[in-house]
């Protein structure tokens, strides 16, 4: 099962190496890891997607690193997550129109067009990205780059609102 963990770390040289080395030496399997600055320039946020049944030991080992400030597991329903990808698809002139039509439905933006390929940029929920890739697979995917997932907890107030609306539905 995939777990999404948001890790707030001090923005110090080598902090990414410390975290990835810990994952490697403890035998934890990472699916993706994305790092970037936060509103506070002294801090960075890592979003880690991890395969595995047990998160407790991973979270404790993260906390053990001196530069780790806060670790939060983001549960489905309590998180907002996005991923960005670039995908290059075989697009013979005769099939180009149907490919572009599918892309329009998925909000995938064509950013590079060659004689026999089209390249899209698409961002969204990881599941939606996966759906688009499935749709493109029969045409032939020649290249793919994904950013890894970034995620954030929902504002607690918005969560309450969402729950209320679900209940009333």
């Amino acid at each position, binding site marked *: 099962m995939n777990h999404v963990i948001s890790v707030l*770390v*001090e923005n110090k*040289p*080598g902090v990414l*190496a*410390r975290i990835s*080395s*810990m994952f490697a*030496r403890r035998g934890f399997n990472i699916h993706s890891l994305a790092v970037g600055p936060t509103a506070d320039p002294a801090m960075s946020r890592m979003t880690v997607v991890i395969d595995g049944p047990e998160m*407790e*030991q991973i979270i*404790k*080992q993260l*906390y*053990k*690193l*001196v*530069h*780790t*400030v*806060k670790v939060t597991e983001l549960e489905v329903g309590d998180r907002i997550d996005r991923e960005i990808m670039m995908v290059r698809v075989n697009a013979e002139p005769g099939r180009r129109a149907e490919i572009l039509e599918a892309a329009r439905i998925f909000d995938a933006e064509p950013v590079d067009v060659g004689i026999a390929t089209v390249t899209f940029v698409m961002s969204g929920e990881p599941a939606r990205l996966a759906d688009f890739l499935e749709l493109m697979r029969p045409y032939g995917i020649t290249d793919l780059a994904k950013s890894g997932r970034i995620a954030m907890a929902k504002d607690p107030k918005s969560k309450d609102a969402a729950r209320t609306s679900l209940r009333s539905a």
Partner: protein
Amino acid sequence: MAETLTGAQALIKALELEGVEVMFGVPGGAILPAYDPMLDSPMRHILARHEQGAGHMASGYAHATGRVGVMVATSGPGATNLITPLQDAHMDSIPVVAITGQVATGSIGNDAFQEAHTWGISMPCTKHNYLVTDVNDIPDVIHEAFHLAATGRPGPVLVDIPKNVLASTMKWHRAGRLDLPGYKPRDKGHPKQVKAAIELLQAAERPVLYLGGGVIRAGASQEALAFPELANAPAVTTLMGRGAIPDSHPLCLGMPGMHGNYTAVTAMQQADLLFAVGARFDDRVTGDVATFAPGAKIVHVDVDPAEIGKVRNADVPIVGDARSVLVQLTETLARKLGGKPAPARTEWFEALHGWQEAHPLRYEQDPEGPIQQQYVIQELHRITGGDAVVVAGVGQHQMWTSQFWGFERPNTWINSGGLGTMGYAVPAAIGAQVALPDQTVFAIDGDGCFQMTFNELIAAAVEGIPVKIAVMNNHALGMVKQWQRLFYNERYSAIDLTDHTPDYVKLAEAMGCVGLRAEHPSEVGPTLEKALAVDDKPVVVEFRCDPDAMVFPMVPAGGSNDDIVLSADDLNRG
């Protein structure tokens, strides 16, 4: 006006401010600038003969005192030679700080002479590490390094400083306030958890306290005795926890684990509550985890939350300092008991006493020889009255020392438990003797271990450090031989250290030490007396021991603790 100092001067000053009295090291190119201001410092520097020796000396010093040990080395090979002592200290939670030189910042990454990626190499074997690129950071980094090494779960911290940073200048300033937003070790345990733990203890019919090295590191020995006394519960002390409570105490069952005594091992197996304090359910204690203490509920007290639930789920986890939590536990229990005595647990104690009587640790010393290592250990204990700091390497001699010494006080047993570093004893004993110049420090070493690090005795001789080393010469890598005998059909491979080479007496004398030898059991006592009378130089005593002796009891690696083997005959019977 603030004085202008070089980075090297600032480093030495910062170390002095941390209260460092002695450093163990070897100089070299990149660390040269730091060795110059050392000449003007009251801090003592012991010149080790190999950086690994310097590292274990710092660890022995820290073991003996609980204070931070300091090792110094140059870049490249100097730093890589520290990796074994750093990992050793990491596994056993020993507070040490390593200072390493690095090539100049402009050369980093260029495969410069004596360049190694020390920061990267040392990362997984330190609690934390630094590469200092700005000379102005030195006071803060040194202060943080000592703070991290000594607090929470202690451990090694490395500070790598490029040569040009050491050589450049700064306006001296003392370290500012610690800025470690992610580092907050817990002191007290959660009161609710403490209460829950006491409830489990009150209800338990067969409780066992499982005291580890964390009790000693936390300076919690008194508290670790007061608690089981009030609770009327027996306790085992692990290899790293030996001496946490006195072996002579009626509640102390001794050492559990692969070479633990029958009662300690079986008590854990039969317990309905294991109450772990500062212990980490190491595989050498648990054996096969699936069959370890199958009926026991677990209370786990540790300052490192990651240890709790790592190997075995805890029914009641308590994160906190061993001493603080033991005080809370004792107070809570006292309130609960309200002046009444704790449960008598008569059946449990009868069972324990029965096992102790039926299966004591045993060996036989034939008066005609050969010398048994256990006999040497017991003779040394008799002659010193147990008033010595005992240091061991790794192997049979280590297990026999832990089994037979009879530890009465904490910090009197120094050995490499987690990493199992052969060669640990000689340098660690030197470090302990430097820390405790008026104490008897006696290393019990194997001949295999001794041959790895005896060169450090040259440093000890030159410095007049009167450490004593017993070389238990069974002319073999004894523990490996034991395993080959038991598990590889007596096919002995690469274990023979030969009968007469080296001549340990001549070797000792060549290094400036006193060399003694005992070949017959009747010589053991008198030779030890002779060794103990020397107080101005190191002594090496060779004991020519039984080459075929084996350590028992034994739980074969990965086996269940229920299948503890008491003697070779047991094993042969299947």
